[in-house]
């Protein structure tokens, strides 16, 4: 092909405002760049961030996203929800290192034919200056190394055996009185590893352990067809696990009549190698905030009235904050190189999905073939779209239990992405996941004055 490269822009527009505005630009005989191809949608609320990703994957060099001005939506509110999604998506793209001029957001009304023409010219020139999209090109620049973030040495005493005894008593009583059929708890194997266990008879209660190696988030067994799902069950929860339980209640996946939460006071858990989990260094819920029975550190079991002090923050340890700040401070190309090297390692084992209590969809978007949302190959394209899709689905829902990071065999820095998004949600929308079962998820609501400084 000897033709010089021309930017290829795909535009996602709402039918009633922007599409009409573009039509007006045509009938008004404005002359503007021809590089834009339009996909007409009924409303900006129909614009899925994944369309943007898909367009970039399929060969577009830039994307334009536009709808009615807030307050003027033909369907009254669709663009308000779209605006919230844009805020998250725009920040995520920036964090990943994709140039902001490639994905432009705008509000264009049906009367703004001139604005449409200007917008297209502006976008085309900006993308022309950036050059063809190199996101999926074969050569991969070397990724920068993140400076080792300081891990605070926190002295944390292991739990007392009194707690373990009290826990065994509670479990035995629950099963003996037939209040529950199964209890999800921890046990120790012959080789000394701590693993999840499903106790179904009172005699088995003595196999339950409670120590500082009980890292697993057992609420994940409450979903789908798992051992504690759809039955009268009890689950041993630490404070971080209780956050997941709150999330499940919010999304109608946990029936509190059927499920008993056995909260245990926890000062911290240790991962392999004896290292204290990063989330524990900044834990606000050493006493689980939502449970039916609470086993304190000294071994007393009480029934809390309502919710004990709810957390106010996502567990974002200083070390993680420092790494995120580092990433935001380096140039965009280096940031992209970092994320490309991280996400390229993904082999699509979906361990992160399997272990997450909030990944309960019976048929995950990743498994669908009509349409094929996520390319199944173990290459950068597929890993990129899987990683982004999962992050978008977890925005405002992830409670920071860290299980996905522990499960990932490729040690992908999912914690950085989750923490970045959770921090964003807290700053922009004032929302923290896992605090209150009655809270409205951040993407299911909006404020008339949500930020839109990045939207033309």
């Amino acid at each position, binding site marked *: 092909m000897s033709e010089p490269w021309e930017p290829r822009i795909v535009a996602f527009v709402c039918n009633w405002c922007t599409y009409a505005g573009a039509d007006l630009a045509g009938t008004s005989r404005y002359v503007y760049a021809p590089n834009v191809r339009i996909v007409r949608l*009924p409303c900006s609320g129909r614009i899925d961030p994944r369309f943007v990703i898909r367009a970039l994957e399929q060969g577009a060099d830039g994307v334009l996203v536009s709808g009615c001005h807030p307050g003027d939506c033909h369907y009254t509110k669709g663009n308000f929800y779209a605006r919230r999604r844009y805020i998250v998506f725009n920040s995520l793209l920036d964090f990943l290192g994709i140039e902001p001029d490639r994905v432009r957001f705008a509000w264009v009304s049906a009367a703004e034919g001139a604005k449409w023409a200007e917008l297209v010219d502006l976008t085309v020139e900006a993308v022309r200056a950036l050059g063809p999209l190199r996101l999926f090109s074969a050569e991969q620049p070397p990724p920068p190394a993140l400076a080792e973030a300081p891990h605070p040495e926190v002295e944390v005493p292991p739990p007392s055996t009194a707690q373990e005894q009290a826990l065994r008593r509670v479990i035995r009583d629950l099963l003996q009185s037939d209040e529950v059929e199964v209890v999800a708890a921890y046990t120790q194997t012959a080789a000394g590893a701590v693993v999840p266990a499903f106790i179904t008879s009172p005699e088995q209660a003595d196999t339950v352990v409670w120590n500082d190696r009980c890292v697993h988030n057992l609420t994940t067994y409450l979903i789908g067809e798992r051992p504690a799902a759809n039955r009268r069950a009890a689950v041993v929860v630490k404070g971080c696990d209780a956050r997941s339980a709150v999330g499940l209640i919010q999304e109608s996946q946990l029936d509190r009549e059927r499920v008993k939460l056995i909260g245990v006071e926890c000062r911290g858990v240790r991962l392999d190698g004896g290292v204290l989990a990063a989330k524990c260094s900044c834990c606000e819920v050493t006493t689980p905030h939502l449970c039916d029975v609470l086993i304190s550190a000294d071994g007393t079991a009480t029934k809390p009235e309502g919710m004990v002090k709810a957390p106010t923050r996502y567990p974002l340890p200083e070390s993680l904050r420092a790494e995120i700040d580092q990433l935001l401070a380096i140039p965009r190309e280096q940031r992209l190189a970092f994320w490309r090297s991280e996400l390229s390692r993904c082999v699509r084992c979906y361990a992160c999905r399997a272990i997450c209590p909030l990944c309960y969809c019976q048929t995950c978007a990743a498994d669908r073939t009509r349409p094929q949302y996520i390319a199944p190959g173990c290459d950068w394209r597929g890993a990129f779209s899987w990683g982004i899709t999962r992050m978008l689905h977890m925005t405002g829902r992830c409670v920071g239990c860290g299980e996905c990071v522990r499960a990932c065999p490729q040690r992908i820095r999912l914690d950085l992405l989750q923490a970045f998004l959770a921090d964003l949600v807290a700053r922009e929308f004032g929302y923290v996941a896992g605090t209150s079962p009655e809270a409205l998820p951040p993407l299911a609501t909006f404020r008339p004055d949500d930020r839109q400084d990045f939207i033309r």
Partner: protein
Amino acid sequence: VDERTCVGCFECKRVCPAGAIEERVLQVKGRPDRIVAYVNPGVCTGCGTCTVACRSRSIELAGFTDTQIYAQIGALAEV
């Protein structure tokens, strides 16, 4: 709504600007099995906000399904 894959999280119900999503109890062999979303076709205005909100991809907007839009994107981005 594809009732086989809907998990009843009701994110769609929360975002619907028209309030067209209702809860429906699915019966299995005469006994209530689970609660899923149901779109009242008389109320739905066809904006598609629910479609984006659905993580399990169980709800689709006729005429603007993901398959159709992806086909458009594929055609436009490459040619």
